[in-house]
């Protein structure tokens, strides 16, 4: 636990030397996680403020500008909360199928065609165009693979569909880790940006917390671009990792947010004042009910958080037996004196 408790992000302060430390222009990696949960997008698009297409184009512009900053800069894109795929890597595109000699050419031709249909690509710098086309094509095909009937998913026997934003986050962190460990990109700085549209109900508490701790240890900031309802856990994620959590009040100007507030290079983090929403909801979620807890109980063995006292007086997670006397004490209702002063004497009698 020590290693986790160690605060990975310490402000640079005291010591004048730090301030003028040379900020070198090493390349950095930007990983974007795009939440594509169809139901949430339906809500957003029904409200008329936001269109999926606009978000994608703003995102593409952002990725392109990141690449433009430094020739060594890299980008990657994941989707999350897709009903069929869960979390999936969109770009860069590693596919074994591409390796089959004749298929590969055909595939890329098909991709070009499809992308041409979607993207107005004239006048785009070639490097950008390759990335943009590949992203657009993959995104399109991923969405097309979504089941057209909810029933076809549910019928397979599973009655629930898992949220996978935390999955995408873990995948992104693993991707960063792999890249940083490789010889070619060792020491590559990285950051993660979540473009999130769903609320907390889609986030499994334990997994997201584990991802947060992992990011903290790797010193990777998690930025959150929040469209739709606020998310407590993502707020905590950005707070713990020195990231930016920003709720988009003005979706039309999304590109402005993406290219300023959410565009802060890891090297600059300790120096600039982050445009993050500072009122953070630090509440945790109950392990039994999955609801946020204001005041609750914590298992002394495994630290699991409970909002109610379990009936069998055992911890639901680690099965430790709770002390019966303690439980009865916790369950006892408080008793207080009545308010009227005149009752005081009477009350004393009752007490006895």
């Amino acid at each position, binding site marked *: 636990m020590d290693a986790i408790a160690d605060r990975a992000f310490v402000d640079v*302060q005291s010591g004048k030397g730090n301030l003028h430390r040379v900020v070198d222009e090493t390349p950095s990696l930007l990983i974007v996680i795009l939440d594509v949960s169809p139901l949430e997008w339906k809500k957003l698009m029904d409200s008329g403020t936001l269109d999926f297409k606009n978000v994608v184009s703003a995102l593409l512009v952002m990725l392109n500008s990141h690449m433009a900053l430094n020739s060594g800069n890299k980008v990657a894109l994941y989707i999350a909360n897709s009903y069929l795929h869960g979390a999936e890597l969109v770009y860069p595109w590693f596919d074994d199928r591409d390796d089959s000699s004749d298929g590969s050419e055909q595939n890329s031709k098909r991709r070009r065609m499809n992308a041409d249909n979607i993207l107005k690509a004239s006048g785009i710098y070639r490097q950008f165009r390759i990335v943009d086309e590949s992203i657009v094509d993959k995104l399109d095909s991923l969405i097309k693979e979504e089941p057209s009937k909810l029933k076809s998913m549910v019928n397979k026997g599973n009655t629930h569909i898992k949220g996978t934003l935390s999955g995408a986050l873990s995948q992104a962190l693993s991707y960063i880790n792999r890249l940083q460990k490789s010889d070619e990109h060792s020491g590559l700085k990285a950051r993660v940006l979540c473009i999130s549209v769903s609320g907390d109900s889609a986030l499994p508490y334990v997994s997201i917390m584990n991802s947060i701790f992992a990011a903290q240890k790797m010193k990777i900031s998690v930025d959150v671009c929040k469209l739709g309802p606020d998310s407590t856990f993502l707020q905590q994620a950005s707070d713990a990792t020195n990231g930016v959590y920003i709720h988009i009040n003005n979706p039309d100007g999304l590109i402005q*947010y993406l290219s300023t507030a959410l565009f802060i290079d890891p090297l600059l983090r300790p120096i600039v004042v982050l445009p993050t929403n500072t009122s953070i909801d630090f509440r945790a979620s109950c392990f039994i009910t999955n609801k946020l807890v204001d005041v609750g109980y914590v298992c002394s063995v495994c630290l699991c958080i409970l909002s109610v006292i379990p009936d069998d007086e055992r911890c639901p*997670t680690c099965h430790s037996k709770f002390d019966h006397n303690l439980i009865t004490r916790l369950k006892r209702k408080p008793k207080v004196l009545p308010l009227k002063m005149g009752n005081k004497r009477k009350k004393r009698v009752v007490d006895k």
Partner: protein
Amino acid sequence: MPASVSTTAFHRKKAGTISIIEDVEPPMVVWKCIDSSVSHPLVEIPLDNIVNLQATPASSDKMMLKIGLKAGTLKKDIDNSAPARNKNNTLFTFKTRANMDEVKLALQQIIARKKSAKQINESSRPTTPFTGDESTPAHSKESTPSSSSIPLISRDNLGNDELLANLLDSKNLLKNLTLQQKLLRENPELMKTFTDAVIKSGLDPEEFWSTRVHLLRSFAIQHNQKRGPYNVLSTIKPVASSDNEVNVSVTREKIHEIFKQYPIVRKAYDDNVPKISEGEFWSRFFSSKLFRKLRGEKVNLYDRGDITLDKYLYYDPDYDGEEEDEDVDKLLEDQEAKESLDKNNKKRGKSQVDQITASKKKVKLFRGEDEKVSKCIDILGNEEDDPQLKGNTPDVTMKSNQDPDLVNVLRTMNRLSRRMMSNIKEDKPNADLDNEFKDELEIKDLDDKEKVEYNELTYTQRSNISSSIVPSELIKQAMTQSDLNPALNDYDQFISLFKEKFHDEEKLDLTSVYYQIKKSIYDSYKDVTSIVRKNAKQSSQSWSKKSIDVLSSNDIKDAKSDMPKNRLESLRLTQSTSIEFLRHFWLHFNSISTSSMSTNPNFKTELIQLRKCYFSLEKCLERVSANLSNSEGEERISEERVLKQLIESLKQAMKRYDDAIIDPKH
């Protein structure tokens, strides 16, 4: 007996000599009558019993010095018939003011030294003069007993742990008014809350502190912590001043540390300071080779040093000030005498270096005879133990071709570390060195591994399984769907639209992100900058703080607010006072709900106290509404919005109390 100060003085109108003797433990003031036929020829006052010292002011004709003793201690008066009422005071009269001042000053110094020595737990040699003059005021003043029954700072480090534990006990902390006052004085924020809640609104001070015991505790600890030993000489850095002089500043504490860590310096000081002035001693010291060597720097033979002090270079480096060093002195003196004789006989050009090397040899000889080597590490004592026989290279410090300077530096550092360590472990009984070495030599790897026992826990993770991103109603809807009943649900309707998103008539045009939406972009820009501005005010980064300090030093902590200042201030006051009462309410409430008559002896008083808290909450609510009624219209609305949460929490607390009232009828 040698006396540091000795002068004529009258005691009970008899002439005599007063002298201060520092060589005995404790140091004493002795007055001896010249006329031995007098009834009380000798007065001895041990100096550690002195509590005060009074002298007639310079304006007065009389020159008298009164020494006040600790009550209950008998001065050793040969004549016991001395008047009883004057038992704790001894009066001396002097002929000249100079004499009196001399005695007075000497006494002051000794007492101050004594006290500071006690404070820093220097029990070994109280006779060591520290710095002369400046030692008197600060420390002696600080140690006069404070009015509180519990000491704020421990004056004595003996039993420091116990004392600290005692001090940190919650009960004692709550009683320690001096500490509380001091904390309040240092923490203006707390002072404000204290004035609001306790002085103005009548909260019991003990209640107030009971929620802040942690503050008191950390404050007490903070004021009680002492610094561990550190390598002093390395912290001293000569600074070149503008007129090409080298300045070194040393504080009293540093000098004390130097003496403690380098007994050799103390010895040098002892030997030389009456002869040369203190300032001169230190300036000589910092330019000497001795200083450089002790610091662990390389000393070149041709470096300019200091003749007086550099002879200490050749003293036993392990000299720890304990053993009688007269022998060494004698040895050196003999050596010098002989040397000077030789010098006269021989040619004049004899260099000093030779002289020193000669004396060095002698000292080394002396060392070799005297030093005891523990059997455990005595390699000479056990030749078979010689690692070189087995083909290993000798230790770095043992190689014959090793650079002697390097070895010296290593040794100096080791010696210093050893000394610092031994200073720390004072409280430990001097553990047997042999055992310590044995412990070190033992090969722990060969021991049986201790088996660590674990408690097995079966872990089931539930929360991850149960979270689903699709609402259950929708799933139910989907489940009931059949071919006969092809009612579309929300998802099915939308997904077909979503899938074609990229294929509607308009192509994805990246220029759309800024084309013709300048206004929205400007709005976003304003949004971002306002957040940055807000955060900058709370930013803890030094440089940004500084720049803000310059910009707005007054309202740095104020968030942007349209309210007039006085209103804001008054609302804040109401808020913080109410919160204070709320805190106490919940404290008692929770304590009552988790205890009962049988488990808590104070249950009844707490019940009554809780009710008091309830009434205070009622008053708080009144205050809030009274405060709000001071404003009207727009302002009123915004103020109500600000205080809404407070009102809610007050009401909530009161509601909880109301719910918990037991009906007396049952």
